[in-house]
């Protein structure tokens, strides 16, 4: 006869452990949902604040690549301290035109003079963007249970109506909260590493500050490909052409709305380094170029191609982010010059 007492106790321990696991997961989900909505509140507060009526606002928008621009440095570089112009960097991580479209009315309500929109390849491609090297892709002969499981996991998440992407990054939110707790608002104005009054949605991604060596950048590329060996080719889907690409349609909608409200729009392609560009499919690069041409022609707006301008400079944090630490890097200077040129025009 099995020892019933032991079995009962086992069940108790197992149930306790599983309950703790389940409860902790639920707590994370609750926390993430709450925080996500407070982030939304934060955006509302920013856009609906009473701005100085004499202030002429210039908004830099885009994702983390634009977040790496130092708006304070650009401001000091191109404007006199007494100038009415003020540059805000309103980028946020993982931004895409579709997500940005949700805030376009807020942006318009803040009445900026100019919007400078940083657009990158990943704005138009679905899936997790991992570097791919099509030549080294290895096909597996046998079925891959990992993919089936991930699909199940994703479907369960969807059926429970979970914001899957947000749930993936509790650490970033916790870090942001900790940063806000230990830094006073005056710190924000002086530090270039965390969120500031002119960069209100950029969490304390304090890691993007130092310049990596070329070897390290190459290694990142190699490592990412090795680690994602079997999924490399799946991790970023090919960019859909213009008529099917929801993000491209959203981008056009954003530009149209801004123009209807007499806001000047400038688009630039966000910079990447050589390892990133080398790993991309040629077809995707061509489609991206077509997108830029369509925008430029259809809306008659200036489009600056910066995606391959800095490939040989030692300014990179990783393969798609210029390091934030250095003020005088040419990318900041170039964006400053673009703003100046457009204002003169």
């Amino acid at each position, binding site marked *: 006869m099995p020892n019933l007492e032991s079995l009962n106790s086992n069940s108790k321990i197992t149930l306790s452990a599983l309950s703790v696991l389940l409860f902790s997961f639920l707590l994370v989900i609750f926390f993430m949902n709450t925080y996500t909505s407070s982030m939304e509140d934060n955006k509302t507060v920013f856009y609906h604040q009473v701005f100085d009526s004499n202030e002429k606002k210039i908004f830099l928008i885009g994702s983390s690549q634009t977040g790496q621009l130092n708006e304070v440095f650009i401001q000091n570089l191109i404007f006199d301290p007494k100038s009415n112009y003020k540059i805000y960097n309103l980028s946020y991580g993982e931004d895409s035109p579709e997500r940005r479209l949700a805030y376009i009315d807020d942006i318009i309500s803040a009445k900026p003079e100019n919007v400078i929109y940083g657009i990158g390849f990943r704005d138009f491609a679905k899936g997790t963007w991992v570097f791919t090297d099509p030549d080294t892709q290895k096909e*597996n002969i046998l079925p891959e249970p990992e993919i089936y499981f991930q699909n199940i996991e994703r479907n369960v998440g969807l059926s429970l109506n979970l914001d899957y992407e947000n749930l993936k990054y509790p650490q970033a939110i916790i870090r942001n909260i900790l940063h806000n707790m230990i830094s006073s608002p005056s710190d924000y104005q002086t530090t270039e*590493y965390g969120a500031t009054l002119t960069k209100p949605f950029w969490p304390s991604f*304090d*890691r993007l500050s*130092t310049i990596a060596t070329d070897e*390290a950048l190459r290694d990142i590329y190699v490592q990412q490909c090795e680690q994602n060996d079997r999924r490399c080719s799946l991790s970023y889907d090919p960019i859909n052409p213009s008529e099917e690409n929801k993000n491209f349609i959203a981008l056009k909608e954003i530009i149209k709305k801004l123009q209807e409200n007499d806001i000047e729009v400038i688009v630039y392609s966000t910079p990447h380094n050589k390892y990133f560009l080398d790993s991309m499919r040629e077809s995707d690069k061509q489609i991206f170029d077509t997108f830029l041409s369509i925008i430029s022609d259809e809306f008659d707006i200036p489009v600056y191609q910066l995606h391959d301008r800095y490939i040989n400079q030692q300014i990179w944090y990783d393969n798609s982010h210029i390091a934030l630490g250095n003020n005088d890097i040419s990318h900041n200077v170039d964006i400053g010059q673009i703003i100046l040129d457009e204002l003169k025009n």
Partner: protein
Amino acid sequence: MLFSTIEFVVFFIVVLAAITIIKNRQFQHLFLLSASLFFFYYSSNYLLILLISSILLNFYLGKQIWKTESQHQKKILLALSLAGNLALLGFFKYADFAILQFNILGQELNLNPDIPFLNLALPIGISFYTFQAITYTVDIYRGKLIPSKTLREFALFVSFFPQLVAGPIVRASEFLPQLRAKIQQYETGTKLRQIVIENPNLRLGITIMAFGFFKKIFIADNLILLTEHHVAEPELESFMVIIRTIAFGIRIYCDFSGYSDIAIGAAMILGFKLPVNFNKPYFATSPSDFWKRWHISLSSWLRDYLYIPLGGNKKSVSNTYLNLIIVMFLGGLWHGASWNFVIWGLLHGLYLAIHKMLLNKFPVLKDLRFFKTKTGKIISIFITQYFIFLAWIPFSIADTNLMFVNMQKYVFLDFLTENSIPFIISQKYPIAIMGFFVLLHLISYRTKNLPTKLSKLKLPYWILFLFVTLFFILFFYGGNPEPFIYFKF
């Protein structure tokens, strides 16, 4: 399959449920074997064939070695087994490295060989399971082990999923008896020798696993960005190198010992005892003490299957030093086909040899009372760890130039702070985690058998411990399950 994923949690729960339901030992073994092979297949796909080949080769050669009367034939069979295992390891792990060195040498000699790389996928865990398989045939040859009677039993030993991909390196003589004599402790009168999930093992196993997950996900994974981001030379300062090096030391310890903890905990729940792999290595007071505390299953493997066969310390003093260096050189190479691992191994070989040399030249050092005092111990720990952490630089940086610049900055402090202060500000979060680790490590050093003590807490307190641990793990989860560093080896 990574331990730090939902997939593993689901997989493990299914395995536990099935083991509880299946009452027949043979079926339990069969089920565990199938689960282990599935676990490997999940991440390695067709490379499963290598694992199966290794199992078949060593099982049949082991049997033949045992059966054969002639010593000469035994030797040949053992050589065949070693050649088979090392060929498998060498071909998949070192072929491209060898080709690269050959091409470089050829270019130096103006031969321009330009042999193309094979670009083989590195099979996960190959270094671990081949070493395990070697213990089997060598121990049979030495007469220390009776070969496994069934292929099922041997296959389960090699492929047992908790330790399959990154150890601890379990010896056949430690594992097989557990399979054979796995009798329910609280014997119930049945003749079934079955795997029974026991209450104390379940609690302790879950506690150890929680420790492992905490080390891996909360500490190690949160130090990745700091340790993998190499600052370019003009900006690099000594303080930055020191911080990064300490961070890497903490990360690799938490990553690897975290894996070992999860493996040991999972095996314990299933009723198996795996050897301890780490014992607070950063409190080691000498290089030899370090290797009694770090990756113990590898260092003892190297001692028993390499150092002693080479002659160990039984020959001349100079031979002992040379043996230490050779063993650590090969130990370094075992980690990966790259010169930085070789340099790491050689450095450790030198540390061990110099330490031995000092003790031989000045025997008084052994018994010096000062080193037994608290101050003496602390000084010994700091000196030892200074060199251990110096060696982490080549381990973590493959680029030779960058590695030497970092080592130079580590040894010859420049006391520059222009870039270091912004660097520290920008890395305050991982630096805080490093501080937290030091605190926890100290607590765990001073509290003997911490996991056992925690597992014996009253149920509500134990649940609270689990909850706090999970809170840190889940709320500081970085978004992507990061592979364990030792998966690459």
